[in-house]
């Protein structure tokens, strides 16, 4: 399957899942109340996050123009390449030969006239790509890093944490040992080693981030499961003849979901920032803001200074992280049982 078709399918599936989750949450007064409270407390941050999600979503839907399906496209040419909705906001050949400043009419070096004078709102980079375009495309990469890693971390942490907390005994001892061992290794060292072993690439980097990132949530889940296990409603379920597996599924996991959501929101920005750090070390993901920032590093020492690349990518990153953190704090306030009780 061609990559863009896969991407379209995944995007569609995620959109359906998101819609289903939202619909389900709307029917549950606890979640509905929390959602309403979240929108009331942080309307701007929530909108900003939604905007990033929208941009990333639009960048994930791509198709090929005037091109019979199945026919091989010539590599390297624009013809026959899938272009996303975001790509289509820009002309197909929206590229110069080299650096140009924002809204410039000539190249920065050599004074050659640009192909699209005055059109590059945020200038172009070393190989003449439009910086605004690249920045917008970076949103998708950032969300993929946070999303895919969370998709690895959350099920893993839930599985490990719940089974350790529920079964206890030897299994718990073993899990606890693994978690302590992982937690006592320097994260950065472990990340570099994992990426060395797994290779670079989006999936591999996310996998590495996932392997280093699941311990915190698993610990929380384990402790909470320990607590829930002794609660009256679990005992009542047992007396009512409910099987252990069903008790875990019907009583334990739903009562952990607030914890998972809080951790996801807090984890997300950390993951995006980790990728920036990895890019700086040269093991990041192509097309990420981290890569753009990394490239811009050397450009700052040029004369005249090339600032637009760095400014665009780091501002986009900063706004996303700020908004996500604000939403995460609000999510915690709204869902944490200790503070949530007042909200309900």
């Amino acid at each position: 399957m061609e990559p863009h078709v896969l991407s379209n399918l995944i995007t569609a599936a995620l959109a359906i899942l998101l819609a289903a989750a939202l619909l389900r949450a709307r029917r549950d007064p606890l979640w509905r109340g929390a959602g309403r409270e979240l929108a009331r407390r942080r309307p701007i941050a929530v909108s900003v996050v939604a905007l990033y999600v929208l941009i990333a979503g639009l960048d994930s839907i791509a198709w090929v123009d005037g091109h019979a399906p199945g026919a091989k496209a010539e590599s390297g040419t624009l013809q026959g390449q899938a272009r996303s909705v975001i790509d289509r906001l820009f002309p197909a050949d929206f590229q110069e030969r080299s650096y140009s400043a924002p809204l410039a009419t000539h190249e920065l070096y050599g004074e050659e006239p640009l192909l699209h004078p005055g059109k590059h709102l945020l200038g172009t980079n070393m190989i003449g790509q439009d910086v605004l375009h690249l920045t917008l495309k970076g949103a998708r990469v950032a969300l993929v890093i946070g999303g895919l890693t969370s998709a690895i971390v959350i099920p893993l942490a839930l599985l490990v944490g719940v089974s350790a907390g529920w079964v206890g005994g030897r299994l718990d001892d073993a899990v606890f040992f693994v978690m302590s061992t992982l937690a006592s290794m320097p994260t950065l060292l472990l990340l570099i080693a994992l990426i060395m072993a797994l290779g670079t690439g989006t999936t591999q980097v996310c996998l590495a981030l996932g392997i280093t990132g699941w311990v915190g949530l698993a610990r929380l889940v384990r402790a909470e499961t320990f607590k829930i296990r002794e609660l009256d409603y679990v005992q009542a379920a047992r007396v009512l003849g409910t099987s252990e597996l069903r008790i875990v599924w019907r009583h334990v996991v739903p009562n952990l979901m607030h914890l998972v959501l809080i951790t996801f929101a807090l984890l997300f920005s950390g993951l995006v920032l980790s990728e920036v750090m990895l890019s700086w070390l040269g093991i990041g993901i192509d097309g990420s803001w981290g890569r753009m920032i990394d490239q811009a590093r050397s450009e700052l020492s040029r004369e005249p200074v090339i600032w637009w690349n760095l400014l665009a990518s780091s501002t986009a990153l900063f706004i996303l992280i700020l908004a996500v953190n604000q939403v995460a704090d609000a999510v915690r306030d709204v869902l944490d049982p200790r503070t949530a009780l007042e909200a309900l």
Partner: protein
Amino acid sequence: MSEAVSPPLLRVEGLETYFPIRSGPLRRITGWVRAADGVDLAVPAGKTLALVGESGCGKSTVGRSILRLEQPRAGRIWFDGVDLATLAGRALHPYRRRIQMILQDPAAALDPRMRLRDAIAEGMQAFGIGANEAERTERVAELLRQVRLDPGQMGRYPHELSGGQRQRVCIARALAVDPELIVCDEAVSALDVSIQAQILNLLADLQQERELAYLFITHDLAVVRHIADRVAVMYLGQIVEEGPVERVFALPAHPYTRGLLAAAPSLDAGARGRPAPVRGDPPSPANPPAGCRFHTRCPDVFDRCPRESPPSYAVGDGTSRCFLCDPEGPSR
């Protein structure tokens, strides 16, 4: 007064449930809390046995052992001719349906993320009662009516209800599987006095309608008088006195029972000639006193008490673990 003699629905014999005390870096077992240490009791079908005692005396452990939420280390739990203490897993499952429980705190006993309908239908699902969801919903509505709640509330969540309403939901949930015995562990202790009376009356009505037996665990003697047919008084993991409520309240045979009755606040204040309430705190169940367990606090203690452990002597159609009730005379 005498009761019709029929084999009891539940008979507990010599029940021992200990909890390990672990200490040290290796978490080695260094001692045992003897929460239930040789408990005998019987609950007749359709009747109520109240199990009373101070907090920490092990009365909840007895209830939890009967429900097999704790594993007893010794003793027999005869229910309808079968020893539940030896059953586990699949073999135990059918008996779960016949013994249910109601707990003290209805807010904790209901999953906050579960609607009332699903909470009440949970046991039905586990036992395959009702052919489909619609039929179960129908039954849930009927159960809600039986506990005097509006069936229209079945889509609600526990936090939307009051304490009394929640306890009614817990009762409906227990009734959903048609039990024969319900272990009520301090089932009304957390409720307002006015609500307490409502719930007790509801339980009494349900007992009449459904021939239910209750093991009613409580520390509240007023509640015992209200609901129970027989009462068992527990002290430090043992039943010290058992008998019909009227007899035990009028003529307590054991000094501990007398002390408990004296300690209960009463409206006829100034009643003279009442014995003094029990003094001091109970000893640790990890290290119970030798001889009679009550001798450290007993007002009637004499030389035999610290030396020997009293057996259960017959008193009327009940029992008492006190040498004063020895038919051969207290001192020997």
